[in-house]
């Protein structure tokens, strides 16, 4: 069963990576990053069970904490960029200033 879970995790991670590369809307790109983080968490939980060790679940827990903080700051940045440019497309935000 471990292999199944890991392949599912790899698939979700790859789909998320393609989404980050393909999509232009900054919010959707952000969602794809979240999908990749979730896929990693699944691998961590699977390995915790495989090895009979709680450390994997602990790391997954910390990943969730950091992801929550990252979402807050990232979305605040997107809102700030949207206010100045009236657009959430990453193509329009190709300059850090002006």
């Amino acid at each position: 069963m471990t292999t199944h879970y890991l392949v599912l995790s790899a698939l979700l991670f790859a789909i998320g990576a393609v989404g980050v590369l393909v999509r232009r809307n900054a919010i959707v790109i952000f969602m794809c990053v979240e999908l990749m983080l979730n896929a990693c968490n699944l691998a961590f939980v699977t390995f915790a069970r495989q090895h009979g060790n709680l450390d994997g679940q602990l790391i997954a827990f910390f990943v969730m904490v950091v992801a929550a903080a990252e979402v807050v700051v990232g979305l605040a940045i997107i809102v700030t960029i949207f206010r100045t440019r009236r657009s959430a497309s990453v193509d329009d935000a190709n300059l850090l200033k002006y």
Partner: protein
Amino acid sequence: MGETITFWVLAVVSVAAALGLVLSRKAVYCALMLGVVMGSLAVLYAVQEAPFLAAVQIIVYTGAVMMLFLFVLMLVGVDSTDSLVETIKGQRFWAIVAGLGFAALLALAIGNVAFVRPTGLGGATSQYGGNVQGLAQLIFTRHVFAFEVASALLITAALAAMVLAHRERAKAKPTQKDLARARFAGPHPTPLPGPGVYARHNANDMPALLPDGTVSELSVNRIIARHDVQEGRLPEDPRLAEAIRQAVEVEEESK
């Protein structure tokens, strides 16, 4: 057996939802798909002897993070769909090729490993008296420094969000006195005439007839008038139609 069925059902659902997240054009559908993936992953955690993580996944991800995404979508505009123009030529094609290659690489690497039967977490948790107690034991003893750093990170993130989302007012907020003065200094101290010729129409987009029989274009809602002109829904009476057109012109001049 039960785990196998759960896994296959949720694997199909979550991969389909992840594909939907990448493929759907509307950002709100993407958020919905992400919610489905997160929910099914929570069930997979519960199946894999991680009940605490399953609860945290539901509370933090499908609860807080998804709400945050939806709020920002409402702020930024729900109808902001992706443009189909490629900025870098052939980017989409090569991104999909890279994604497929990456997935194949990972799957082959995983397929090369022969895993023994999972040890299971029974031994690791029973000495502490349960999954939550075992995690607490690890967090508050061996990883207590990481825990403290995480709390500092959360406070920093909350502050950062407030700083980033805060907007200084360019000029002072007008008081009631300022508003009253501006109104009496302007052309219309009284309220504007209400729309609708009550004897014949009571629709909101009909200009009012003033007591002397003239048509008042001030009574028309500018936004409704613009839609009426664009979609050709003007009244048959030429005087009323003219008033609606004038209301649109006044609005465009004021821009």
